[in-house]
C-alpha cells in the first residue's frame, strides 16, 4: 500500500463525507430545536433523490439538459422542504404535548408511509440518474483519476457548513435557532412564535436532507432501501459530532468516511499471522467509531449536556397496583392465553400467533423496564434478544445441550452482554444513551453477521428445535407461556420493589436521587442487565419457536419494533408494553395478509393510534378516564 494510494483514498473519503454531512446536518438542526428524533429523515433524503432523477430530465426539456440537472436538484430540495413543513404543521405539531419519543413513533410511521408512497409513485426498480453535465469527467491526482463530481461534492460539504454557520451566526432566524437549541425558556420568554420557528426549522432540515439526496443523483441510483440505510448513518454522524453541533457533524462525517475509506484502502492485511480482510469492517465502521467516541466523550465531539426536553409532556402518574377488578381482568387474559392450546383445536392458527405475541410481550416488557421506569430509551435492545437467541441456538446446535440448559445458556449470554455493554451505556443520558445502545447492537449484529463458524454468518443457525416435551406445538407454547408470565410478573414485582423505586427516582431526578444516596449508575446498570437477561429469555423462546435464528433478530428493525410496541401500548403504563406487543403483532400479522402496501397501512394505523392516544393505547385509555388535575 503506497502513501499515494492512501492519500488518494483520503480525498475520496471527503466526497463521501459531504454526503453524510448533508443528511446529518438537517437531522442535527431539527433535533437541536424541536427535540424530535426524526426517523423519517432518511426518507427525506430518499425523496430528494427520487425527485431529482424525475425532475432533472423534465426540467431539462424546458431549459436545456445541463441546466435541468442542477435545477432538478434545487427543485427536489425545495419540494422536500415544503413537504417537511407540511408534515410539521399537520402532524408533529399535534404531538408536542405527548411524552418524549411519541414524535419518534410518528416519524417512524411516516417512514413506512413514505417508503410505500415512493414504491407506488416510482415503482420497484432502481432509477439511475444522469451524470452531472460538465462534471462527468475526471482529473489526474497522484497518478490516479479523481472524478470531477467527487471534487465538487468534497467542496459542497464545507460550503454548506459555512452557509449554515453564517445563517446561524448572522441572521435573526439563525439566532433564534441557536437560542432555541440552548435555552428553550428564553425563546418562549421572548415571545417568539414558536410554532412558526419549528415549522421553518423542520423545513430547513428536511430541505438539506433532500438536497443531500438529490446531489447523489450522479453517483447512485434512487432505490427504496435508501431511507433506512441513510438514517443509520445520519444518526451516527449527528451523535458523534454532538447533537445540535453543525461543525461537529461535519467533523464526524469526515471521521466516519475516512475510517471507511481506510478500511477499504487497506484491503486484505496480515495481523499476527492472521489474514484479515479489512474491507469487511466497512459493515460497521461507523458504529465502531460512534461507540469509541461516546465512551470517551459522552456528549460527542462538540456536544454539550442536553438541556431538558422541550415539552416532555405531563409527568407520569404514580404507579398503582392492580385494583380488584383489574386483577380479575388480568387473570382472565392470563386464562385466555393459558387455554390457547385448547382454542387451537378449533382455530389451529391461534397458538402460533399467540406464541409470537408472548415472545413480543416479553421482549417489549423488558425494554419497557429500562425505558419506562428507568427512563433510558434503548435503540439497541435487539442486541440482547439476539444474544439470547444465538446463545440458545449455539447451545443446541454446537454443544447439543438439553433444551432447558440451552435456554439458560441463552439467558446467560444475553445477561453477560447486557452487563458488559450496560456498564458503558448507563453513564450516558438521553439520546446519547440511545445511540450507544444502538452502536453496541450494530456491533453485535455485525459479529453475528460475519462470524460464520459460530453464528452461521448472514444465514444464521438452523435446526434449533427443542426436545421432548417441548417439541410439540403445545409443549413449546405452554413452556413459553410459563416463562413469559414469570418474566412479566418478575419485572412487575421489581418495579414496585425498592429497586424499582430507586430506578424511577433516578429517572425523575438524577440529582435528587444521588443527593439522597441512591447509587444511580449501579441501579441503572443492574436494571439494564436484568432487562437484558429477560430479553434474552424472549430471544431464546424465539429461537425455539422458529427453529432457526438469523442476524435479523439483532437488526435495527427489531429494536425499532420493540420501541414501537412500547410506545403504542403506552410507555407510562405497566401493562402498556404487553398491550402494545399484542396489538403490534396482531396488526402486523393481519395487515401483512391484507395488502401489498402493508407498510403504509401499518404506518397509517400507528399514526392514528399516536394521534388518538398520544400516551399509547393503555396510557391513553387511562388518561381519558382520570380526572383532570390528577397530574400537572
Amino acid at each position, binding site marked *: 500500500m503506497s502513501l499515494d494510494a492512501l492519500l488518494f483514498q483520503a480525498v475520496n473519503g471527503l466526497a463521501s463525507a459531504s454526503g453524510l454531512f448533508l443528511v446529518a446536518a438537517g437531522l442535527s438542526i431539527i433535533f437541536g430545536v424541536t427535540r424530535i428524533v426524526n426517523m423519517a429523515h432518511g426518507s427525506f433524503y430518499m425523496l430528494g433523490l427520487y425527485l431529482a432523477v424525475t425532475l432533472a430530465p423534465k426540467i431539462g426539456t424546458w431549459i436545456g439538459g445541463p441546466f435541468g440537472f442542477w435545477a432538478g436538484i434545487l427543485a427536489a430540495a425545495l419540494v422536500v422542504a415544503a413537504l417537511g413543513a407540511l408534515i410539521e404543521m399537520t402532524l408533529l405539531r399535534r404531538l408536542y404535548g405527548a411524552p418524549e419519543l411519541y414524535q419518534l413513533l410518528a416519524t417512524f410511521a411516516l417512514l413506512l408511509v413514505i417508503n410505500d408512497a415512493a414504491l407506488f409513485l416510482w415503482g420497484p426498480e432502481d432509477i439511475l440518474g444522469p451524470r452531472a453535465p460538465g462534471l462527468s469527467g475526471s482529473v489526474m491526482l497522484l497518478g490516479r483519476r479523481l472524478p470531477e463530481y467527487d471534487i465538487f461534492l468534497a467542496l459542497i460539504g464545507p460550503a454548506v457548513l459555512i452557509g449554515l454557520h453564517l445563517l446561524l451566526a448572522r441572521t435573526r432566524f439563525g439566532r433564534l435557532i441557536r437560542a432555541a437549541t440552548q435555552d428553550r425558556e428564553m425563546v418562549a420568554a421572548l415571545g417568539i412564535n414558536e410554532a412558526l420557528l419549528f415549522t421553518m426549522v423542520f423545513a430547513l432540515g428536511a430541505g438539506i436532507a433532500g438536497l443531500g439526496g438529490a446531489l447523489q443523483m450522479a453517483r447512485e441510483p434512487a432505490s427504496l432501501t435508501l431511507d433506512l440505510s441513510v438514517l443509520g448513518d445520519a444518526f451516527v454522524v449527528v451523535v458523534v459530532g454532538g447533537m445540535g453541533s453543525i461543525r461537529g457533524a461535519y467533523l464526524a462525517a469526515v471521521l466516519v468516511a475516512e475510517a471507511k475509506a481506510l478500511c477499504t484502502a487497506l484491503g486484505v492485511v496480515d495481523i499476527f499471522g492472521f489474514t484479515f480482510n479489512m474491507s469487511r469492517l466497512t459493515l460497521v465502521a461507523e458504529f465502531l467509531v460512534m461507540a469509541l467516541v461516546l465512551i470517551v466523550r459522552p456528549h460527542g465531539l462538540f456536544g454539550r449536556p442536553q438541556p431538558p426536553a422541550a415539552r416532555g409532556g405531563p409527568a407520569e402518574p*404514580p404507579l398503582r397496583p392492580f385494583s380488584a377488578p383489574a386483577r380479575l381482568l388480568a387473570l382472565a387474559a392470563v386464562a385466555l392465553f393459558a387455554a390457547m392450546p385448547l382454542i387451537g383445536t378449533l382455530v389451529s392458527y391461534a397458538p402460533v400467533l399467540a406464541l409470537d405475541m408472548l415472545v413480543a410481550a416479553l421482549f417489549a416488557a423488558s425494554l419497557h423496564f429500562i425505558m419506562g421506569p428507568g427512563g433510558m430509551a434503548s435503540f439497541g435492545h435487539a442486541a440482547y434478544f439476539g444474544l439470547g437467541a444465538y446463545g440458545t441456538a449455539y447451545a443446541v446446535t454446537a454443544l447439543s445441550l438439553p433444551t432447558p440448559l440451552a435456554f439458560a445458556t441463552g439467558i446467560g449470554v444475553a445477561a453477560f452482554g447486557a452487563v458488559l455493554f450496560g456498564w458503558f451505556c448507563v453513564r450516558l443520558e438521553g439520546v446519547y444513551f440511545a445511540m450507544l445502545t444502538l452502536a453496541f447492537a450494530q456491533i453485535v449484529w455485525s459479529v453475528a453477521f460475519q462470524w460464520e463458524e459460530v453464528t452461521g454468518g448472514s444465514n444464521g443457525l438452523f435446526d434449533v428445535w427443542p426436545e421432548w416435551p417441548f417439541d410439540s406445538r403445545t409443549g413449546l407454547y405452554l413452556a413459553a407461556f410459563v416463562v413469559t408470565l414469570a418474566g412479566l410478573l418478575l419485572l412487575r414485582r421489581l418495579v414496585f420493589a425498592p429497586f424499582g423505586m430507586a430506578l424511577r*427516582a433516578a429517572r*425523575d431526578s438524577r440529582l435528587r436521587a444521588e443527593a*439522597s444516596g*441512591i447509587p444511580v449508575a449501579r441501579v441503572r446498570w443492574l436494571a439494564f442487565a436484568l432487562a437484558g437477561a429477560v430479553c434474552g429469555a424472549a430471544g431464546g423462546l424465539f429461537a425455539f419457536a422458529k427453529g432457526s435464528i438469523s442476524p435479523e433478530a439483532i437488526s435495527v428493525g427489531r429494536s425499532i419494533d420493540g420501541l414501537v410496541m412500547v410506545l403504542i401500548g403506552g410507555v407510562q403504563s405497566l401493562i402498556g408494553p404487553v398491550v402494545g406487543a399484542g396489538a403490534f403483532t396482531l396488526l402486523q400479522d393481519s395487515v401483512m395478509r391484507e395488502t401489498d402496501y402493508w407498510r403504509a397501512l401499518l404506518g397509517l394505523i400507528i399514526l392514528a393510534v399516536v394521534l388518538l392516544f398520544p400516551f399509547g393505547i393503555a396510557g391513553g385509555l387511562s388518561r381519558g378516564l382520570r380526572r383532570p388535575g390528577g397530574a400537572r
Partner: protein
Amino acid sequence: MTAILEVRELTKHYGGVRALDGVSFSIAPGELLALIGPNGAGKSTCFNIVNGQLRPDSGTVRILGRDVTGLPSRRIAHLGVGRTFQVAAVFGSMTALENVQAALIAARGAVFGFWRPATTIARDEAMALLEQTGMAGEAERPAAALAYGDVKRLELAMALAGDPKLLLMDEPTAGMAAAERGEMIALVQKLTRSRGLAVLFTEHSMDVVFGHADRVIVLARGRLIADGTVDEVRTDLRVREVYLGGTAAAEAAG
C-alpha cells in the same frame, strides 16, 4: 469540638470565570449558617462542591474531620449530609409519601431490595417527616401536582430522611411568597434546634437572614469577604459595598 463541615481554600474556575477563589469556612454542630452574596457570587458552586456534585480545582472539604473532597454525592449523603436544591428536585411521578419513603430507603442503603413493595417500607417514619414539615395533608398527592412551596417543603422532608448532621439548603425559599419565606426558615430553625442539626443555607431576603441565622458568611465574585455574626456582617463596609454599590457604601461610611 470538631466542626461538622470544614472547607479550606476551595477554588473552582469555569473557563475564565472564577466561580470560587480560595474560600474557607467551617460550621459548628447545631449552627445555622447563612451564605449570602449577589447572583453569580458562587454560592451554588460552593454547595455543589461540598455536596460532591462538582470537583474543586483545589482545596479540601472535610465532614466531621474526614476528607471528602471529590467523593460522589451519594457517598456524602451517607455521611450525614442532606441537600435541597435552588430549583427544587423531587421525584415527580411519586406521591409525596413515596418521595420520602424513597429517601428513607436510600438513606438506609436498602435500594437493592427486589421483592417487598417499596410502598410498605418505612411508611410511619415517612409520615412523621411529612408531619414535621407540614406536608401530612398532601401525602397521597403526586409530587408533580404540588404547589411549588409544597415541593420545597417536601424536599426538606426528603433531605431530613437520612437523619443528617448537616443540611445544605440552596435558596430554600426561592420562588416562595414573602410570607411563606419566613415560615420556611422558621421551620428549618425549629427542626435544627430539635435535632441538633447544622445548616448551611443561602437566602436573598436580608430580613430572613438577619432574623434567623446564627452566623453569616458573604461571597462576592467567588471570594469570601465577610464571616461573622449577624451584627458584624450587617455593618461590614465591604458587604454594604457589594450589596448597595459604591456610592451607597460611601454614604453609609460618611
